[in-house]
Structure formats: structure tokens, C-alpha cells
């Protein structure tokens, strides 16, 4: 069924037919969980419950359990928040921005990447909520709800409130986008299901989808608009996250370069996380024909581009600190690179700026092992980036008497570990019970690399109707 041409390599290799796509993806949902899945899932549960114990203890006792002090009031909490939000951005980038750019290679990775977005945003949201100390009021007081204090409202001039709106909108819109993509695939599973429960569950999940041409027409229009809405949304989210810092007056944070720099960093770390997860999923589920080396190479190219943007941003910050001749600003940056936290700064520089440059070599960017290793290195680097921005800017306060050094406690580490537990528990449940690859979209690109097919389609008269 698949047509091979000299135009370009097929997006799905192995001469898969449309029925093969259904078989390959649905089989993973229908078969009993494999041993490797159980191992990964139990490890995630261990992280969830062991970290959860410390998280619960921290909530019961208070955030004094963390290593924060009078000077460094934000450390791992907000670092983890920005890191997780950043990771989430790749999913929307792949599904929305690459849809607008008609990059068809996105079809086999967008489902898992969007799932990653949703789980990463859940992990991110845990941090601003817990860092407020009293999570139960924090969840209510951040919204403009009428109350018995006046009503005393939230402050719409504050970037922290913009963040509340940005993150909650981002989460809910991504969730809807992801779910609507899942509906046709749930219908495929429903129509194959043999068990009573599976038929019931996937019947409910598929919303009674039957795939009529009219429904597909509206569905396509809706997907395109959701992509169009998500694209500025995803850019706005990390821009607003960067405003949390950029609108302050702290040297090292008070920087106009932050929005583009944070967005590039977010895409950078997000793609690294997508690669880490997809390389594992590809291996465990034997999806080599769907997630090909070409996909991995494409993602590695995005990593070079965004990694270089991030590198330029680091340099620009230093240049501006010197060029502005503001002594506080200059000190903040000198202190970053050569002060007490020099090790975190150079860890960040090595992982984020130097290591992705290795992908200029085709041998490295098409090597699975190197890609896997470097994707983890990039994520470590991006965590350090946020740590460097937050902690090194805070620990030298205006008064030398309040200068301090931040050391994480066991609660800092275990609460971070807890969010990994949340993320991977959700991800493995998703990978088992949901179709990991968007079947409907992959089916629609099986034939698309054939020039003869284009010519035969004389029914396409509408210019808005792009293939």
C-alpha cells in the first residue's frame, strides 16, 4: 500500500499498510502489560510514594522543611516549577507549531509529546502551589473569587497572577487538544475491543465517534484553530513565567532578554525530554518503523538550534551587564560565573551550550545511544540554568550581613523526586492504556510522499485545504 518515491524517505518505514498501523498500535493497548512495563511502572510508584511521604510531611510541617533561608527564599521549588513548565512546551510545539508549518513527521510523536506536556504541567503546578505553604488556601486565593474580606481581590498588575492564568489556561487547552486527538483512536480501539469492560470504557472515552466525513471536516478545522490558538499560548506561557523574574528589580533577573531566552530554553529542554521518553517507548514497544532515525535527527536539529539560541542569550546577558556599566548588574554576573555557585554555572554552560554542539556531527545526531545520553545531559543543564538564575541572583543580597548560601535538605530532594513519580506514573499508565501514536494522523500520511497521488487529486480546489 505504501508508495516509495525518490522525492523523500517515507515517514513510516517498513511498508506498513493502514491495517498494520491499527494492529501495531492497538496491540499494545490490548495485550497484557509486559514485564518491562511492570518494572518501569513499579519504579514510578516507588518514586511517587517515597517522595509523596516527604511531600506530605512538608505540607504538614511547613516549608521550613526545605533549605530556604531569609535571603534565598526561592530555590528548588521555583527551579523545579520553571523546569517542568519548560519541558511541557515541547509537546505543544510539536503538535501545534509543527502542524501550522505542515511538518508531517510530527504525526508519530505528537501524541506522546502532548501527553508529556500535560503531565509536566501537572508536576509544574505542584511547585507554586506548595511553595505558598498553605496549599489549601493557595489553590483558592489565586483566583479572583468573591470573598468575605471585602471582596479583596487578586492583583492583576502582578506577573505572578498572570502566571496563574497562563498556566491554568495552558493546562486546560492542552488537555482538550490532546483529548480531541485521542477520540478517533479510542473509537478504533472500541471497535476492536473484545472484553466487556474495554468495550464500555473505550466506548465512553470515544464519545460515540464513527468518523463521518462531515465530522472529520469540522474536526480538521477545529484542530487547525486549536493549533493556531496553542501556538501564541505556548509562547505566552513561558514569556509570562519569565516575567516572574524580569519584572522584578533584582540584578540578574531584571532583564528584557528573558522572554525569548526562556521560550528557547523551554523548547530546548522539552525536546530533550521528548527524546528521552520516545527512545524508551520506541524500544519497549518496538515502534522503530514509526519513530524512525529521521524523526530523531529532526529533533536533534531543533536541539542544536534552540541550544545555540540559549548560548547566545547567556553571552548577551554578560555583554549587557558589562555594557550597561551598572555595578550591581556586573557584580551579579561575575558572581554567577566565579562566585560560590561557580560549579552550577559551569555545569549549565557545559550541558546546555557545549554538549548540544556535538549534534553538528551527523554520526552523533543519528546515534541512538548518543542522543539518549545527550538528551539527559541537556535536561540536567536546563535544571541548572533555572537554579543559576534563581539562587545566584538571590544569595548575594543588598546587605552583606544577609548574604547566605543555599543547601538543599532531604525534603528538597525528595519533593522533587515526588514530581518524577507523578510524571512517570501518569506516563506509563498513558503508554499502556492509551494509543501512544496518533493512528488517524499516521494513516493519513502513509501515502503522502507520492507525487502521482497529488496529481490525481483534482477534487482539491480549495487553497485552504492543504495536505
Amino acid at each position: 500500500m505504501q508508495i516509495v518515491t525518490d522525492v523523500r524517505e517515507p515517514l513510516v518505514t517498513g511498508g506498513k499498510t493502514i491495517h498494520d498501523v491499527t494492529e501495531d498500535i492497538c496491540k499494545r493497548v490490548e495485550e497484557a502489560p509486559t514485564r518491562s512495563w511492570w518494572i518501569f511502572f513499579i519504579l514510578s510508584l516507588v518514586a511517587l510514594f517515597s517522595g509523596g511521604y516527604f511531600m506530605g510531611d512538608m505540607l504538614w510541617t511547613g516549608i521550613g522543611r526545605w533549605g530556604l533561608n531569609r535571603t534565598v527564599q526561592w530555590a528548588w521549588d521555583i527551579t523545579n516549577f520553571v523546569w517542568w513548565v519548560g519541558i511541557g512546551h515541547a509537546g505543544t510545539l510539536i503538535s501545534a507549531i509543527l502542524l501550522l508549518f505542515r511538518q508531517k513527521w510530527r504525526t508519530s510523536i505528537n501524541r506522546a509529546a502532548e501527553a508529556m506536556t500535560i503531565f509536566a504541567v501537572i508536576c509544574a503546578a505542584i511547585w507554586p502551589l506548595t511553595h505558598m505553604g498553605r496549599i489549601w488556601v493557595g489553590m483558592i486565593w489565586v483566583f479572583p473569587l468573591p470573598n468575605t474580606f471585602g471582596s479583596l481581590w487578586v492583583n492583576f498588575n502582578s506577573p505572578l497572577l498572570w502566571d496563574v492564568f497562563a498556566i491554568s489556561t495552558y493546562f486546560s487547552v492542552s488537555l482538550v487538544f490532546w483529548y480531541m486527538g485521542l477520540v478517533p483512536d479510542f473509537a478504533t480501539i472500541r471497535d476492536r475491543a473484545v472484553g466487556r469492560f474495554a468495550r464500555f470504557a473505550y466506548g465512553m472515552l470515544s464519545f460515540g465517534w464513527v468518523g463521518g466525513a462531515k465530522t472529520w471536516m469540522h474536526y480538521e478545522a477545529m484542530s487547525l484553530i486549536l493549533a493556531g490558538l496553542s501556538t501564541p499560548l505556548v509562547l505566552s506561557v513561558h514569556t509570562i513565567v519569565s516575567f516572574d523574574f524580569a519584572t522584578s528589580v533584582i540584578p540578574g533577573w531584571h532583564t528584557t532578554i528573558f522572554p525569548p531566552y526562556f521560550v528557547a530554553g523551554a523548547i530546548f529542554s522539552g525536546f530533550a525530554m521528548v527524546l528521552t521518553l520516545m527512545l524508551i517507548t520506541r524500544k519497549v514497544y518496538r515502534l522503530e518503523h514509526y519513530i524512525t532515525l529521521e524523526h530523531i535527527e529532526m529533533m536533534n536539529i531543533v536541539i542544536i538550534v534552540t541550544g545555540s539560541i540559549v548560548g547566545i542569550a547567556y553571552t548577551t546577558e554578560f555583554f549587557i551587564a558589562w555594557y550597561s556599566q551598572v555595578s550591581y548588574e556586573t557584580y551579579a554576573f561575575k558572581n554567577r560565573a566565579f562566585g560560590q555557585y561557580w560549579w552550577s554555572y559551569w555545569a549549565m554552560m557545559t550541558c546546555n551550550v557545549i554538549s548540544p554542539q556535538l549534534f553538528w556531527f551527523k554520526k552523533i545526531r543519528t546515534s541512538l545511544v548518543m542522543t539518549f545520553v545527550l538528551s539527559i545531559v541537556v535536561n540536567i543543564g536546563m535544571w541548572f540554568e533555572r537554579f543559576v538564575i534563581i539562587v545566584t541572583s538571590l544569595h548575594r543580597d543588598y546587605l552583606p550581613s544577609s548574604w547566605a548560601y543555599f543547601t538543599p535538605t532531604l525534603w528538597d530532594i525528595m519533593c522533587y523526586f515526588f514530581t518524577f513519580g507523578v510524571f512517570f506514573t501518569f506516563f506509563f499508565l498513558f503508554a499502556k492504556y492509551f494509543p501512544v501514536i496518533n493512528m488517524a494522523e499516521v494513516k493519513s500520511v502513509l501515502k503522502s510522499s507520492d507525487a502521482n497521488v497529488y496529481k490525481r487529486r483534482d477534487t482539491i480546489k480549495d487553497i485552504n485545504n492543504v495536505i
Partner: protein
Amino acid sequence: MATAHHNAETDKHYLLGIYNDEDVLLDAVEHVRKKGVKIYEVFTPYPIHGLEHALGYKRSFMPRAAFAFGALGNICAILLQTTIMGIDWPMIIGGKSFIAIPNFIPVIFECTVLFAAFGMVGTFLVTNSLYPHKVPRIFDRRSTDDKHIVAIDLAKNTLSEAEIRNILIESGVEKHTSADGTEHVGIKQRNFTDEENKGSFIRYLADLIANGVTSSNRAIKTSK
């Protein structure tokens, strides 16, 4: 009892043309419509571009729904912020004016996107009547796998069934020869019973639990 309610409206008879290939389908839909056959609907496993034109559907109204809901969200956000910050409890924050429009832009933008996305998806679900407890009328289960199904409502067509069959064969429905040499043509008749047409979720659930038979008429696998 059920037979008493039988009529042409509820007990529908459809003729299904089954196609293997999307390009054959596109040609076939045009061919069938040119011959004067009214198509009820085409069911495909994935979106096929150009099919809506071949079927003569009007453009989707989703963009208009998104715009309307987006505009609503935009207005709501402006009203919310100006009322709270400028009217209900004005406070001097950093020497800014009470209604500081530039500061309101992020929340206005987020609310616009939120309303547009949810409003549009809601419109989509409502107008296509998709909801969790919906009992789907499945014409052929393979239409979510790899076959394209053209459903023709015999009651709505003036041509006879034999004529429509011939037109479908001309249009290139799938053909395959089984092991014993008999040739099968991808044309099928699908009749919906009263129950399938009304699609009660409670009955669907009861059937599923009691005997495992649902509207798709497939027996449940009891043991491995």
C-alpha cells in the same frame, strides 16, 4: 411490540460501498454523485482532504465559533479586570493607574484563548452530538480501521437497489477472491433495528453486562 413501530424512518436500510483506497474513494464519490445517487455519509478511518468538496459540504463553521467565543472571553477579561481593579476596590500599586491596560493584556489574552478553545470544542461536540454516553450507530466496524465506507440510504434514493449496486461496482469498490475461487464485492446491506436507531445508553449497558451483545452485534470473548 417493537414491530408495531416499524416504519421507513426508524428502520433504515442502507447500502454500503466499501473502498480500500482513499484516491479510489474520492473518484468514486464524484462518480456516484454524478450518477444521481444521494450519499448519506462517508465513514473514513482518517480525514481525507478533498472529500468534503467531493461530497459538496459547506465550509466548516468552527472558525466562526472560535471567533465568537474568543471575543466573549476577551470582553469578559476586560470587564473582570477593570471592575475589580478600577471600580470595586481601587488600590494604588506601584504608582500605576487603577485601570492600567498594559498590565491587563496577559490575562485578556489568556481568557481569549481559553474561551475560544473551550467554546469551539464545545460547539464541535454539541453539533456533532458526541458525548460519553452516546451509543454510536456503527455502519461497519472496519471504518475506524482501514476501510472507507460510503453509506447510501435506500429510502432517500429514487434509483433501485440493483442500479445503485451497479453504480457502486463501476466506481471501484474493493474486490477480493477467497480461497475457494468465489469473488466477493465490497457491497453490503446494513439494516438498523429500532433499538440501534434509538440508542439508549441504559439498554446498551444492560445488553453489554447481560449477554455481551451490543449494537455492533459482536459476541463478547468469554475466556482465553
